[in-house]
């Protein structure tokens, strides 16, 4: 299975019926495709809408209805549009149930770094700092390693996105929950052992006696 699809299918199970969710660009966007039947989630695009959906048909685009990347989208019935101040009021005021974001590093304190690599990549934080600070739940969806290097580290060497502890980290190898006691290994991907996760992780992990295999939402038809 494609590792990104695996991550998206696992994250999709974290979304609950009625949730307001904001998905980051890239891998997190895939999560919307994997929602279980009967779970209706409302997606916010931080440029000013609740109720975004993919463009329903070719030729249905309009320049006033776009996602945060500037691409045309659709809107579900019951969508609501608003300005940037209200959009971030929803995020910072604790009204957003969950955000799913990509990550460059997560450390033992559950801190996320995902917005810059000094001397290399300085795209800007966009809404990432607000999302990590304000959402009720922050789920990091990322590959477990990058070019063989662990991304789950003792202490982030990259600049932090926020000092708020994220809620859950979902990778192609594992589901890890930051807690008061440290990072707990909650699930392993199909075919992956806890030992292999430990090998691919710089941070210390707390490994319970039983670590179940990752649950996965069904793939879209």
């Amino acid at each position, binding site marked *: 299975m494609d590792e990104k699809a695996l991550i998206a299918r696992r994250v999709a199970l974290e979304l609950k019926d009625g949730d307001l969710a904001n998905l980051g660009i890239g891998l997190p966007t895939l999560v919307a495709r994997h929602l279980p039947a009967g779970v209706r989630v409302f997606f916010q695009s931080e440029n000013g809408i609740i109720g975004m959906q993919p463009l329903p048909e070719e030729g249905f685009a309009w320049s006033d209805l776009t996602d945060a*990347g500037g691409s045309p989208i659709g809107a579900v019935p019951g969508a609501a549009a608003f*300005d940037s101040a209200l959009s971030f009021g929803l995020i910072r005021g604790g009204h957003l149930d969950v955000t799913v974001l990509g990550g460059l590093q997560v450390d033992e304190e559950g801190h996320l770094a995902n917005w810059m690599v000094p001397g290399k990549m300085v795209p800007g934080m966009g809404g990432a*700092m607000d999302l990590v*600070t304000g959402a009720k739940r922050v789920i990091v969806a990322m590959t477990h390693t990058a070019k063989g290097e662990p991304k789950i580290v003792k202490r982030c060497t990259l600049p932090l996105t926020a000092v708020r502890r994220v809620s859950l980290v979902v990778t192609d190898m594992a589901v890890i929950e930051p807690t008061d006691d440290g990072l707990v290994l909650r699930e392993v991907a199909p075919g992956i052992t806890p030992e292999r996760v430990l090998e691919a992780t710089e941070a210390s992990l707390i490994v319970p006696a039983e670590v179940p295999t990752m649950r996965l939402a069904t793939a879209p038809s």
Partner: protein
Amino acid sequence: MKKVIGLAAAVEMIPDGAALMIGGFMGAGTPPRLIDELVRQGRRNLTVIANDTARPGVGIGKLVTAKLVRRVITSHIGTNPETQRQMIAGDIEVELVPQGTLAERIRAAGFGLGGVLTPTGVGTTVAEGKQTVAVNGTVFLLELPLTADFALINAKRADYYGNLEYSLTARNFNPAMAMAAATVIAEAEDIVPVGVISPDAVGTPHVLVDHLIGKERGHG
């Protein structure tokens, strides 16, 4: 009271070195004719306050490509490699602000607030050099108002008084910026008779708009 002026005359009011707030999010809600006319007139050393610099050839990206911009206060430049190139070359100075903080700082200026206390950025590089204030045991950054000489606003419809109606995600930073700049220049797809826009549909009341770009012959 007459607000409708020509495009060229409007842009001529903007001097080199001016600080401009420009509405829009990746080009959506950015005033297209004002941008093109700024490029045509070749205004230089601009400070641009905006959510992003879009892409080369799109919205604010056109100003960057034409090398009209000396400084950007923005939340994101990652989609425009030209902005990044000019930043690395030292031709353009970039101040990165979290998007929600950017919205609140602009709003604070327009609403007469001395600043807002925000949790975003605490403990990160964004907090460097900023005052923090503890409220009931929680630490917040004191973020200061952000104003500009001009706001360049894009709306779906205007009436001849200057009331502005926005549409979906093209709204974004436009309403807050229309409150925050010394002079507000608005561009709308249509200008309709006064009374046609319902009072409840007005996103920016006309009293905030100084100049409205008229339709010109040949623009359809």
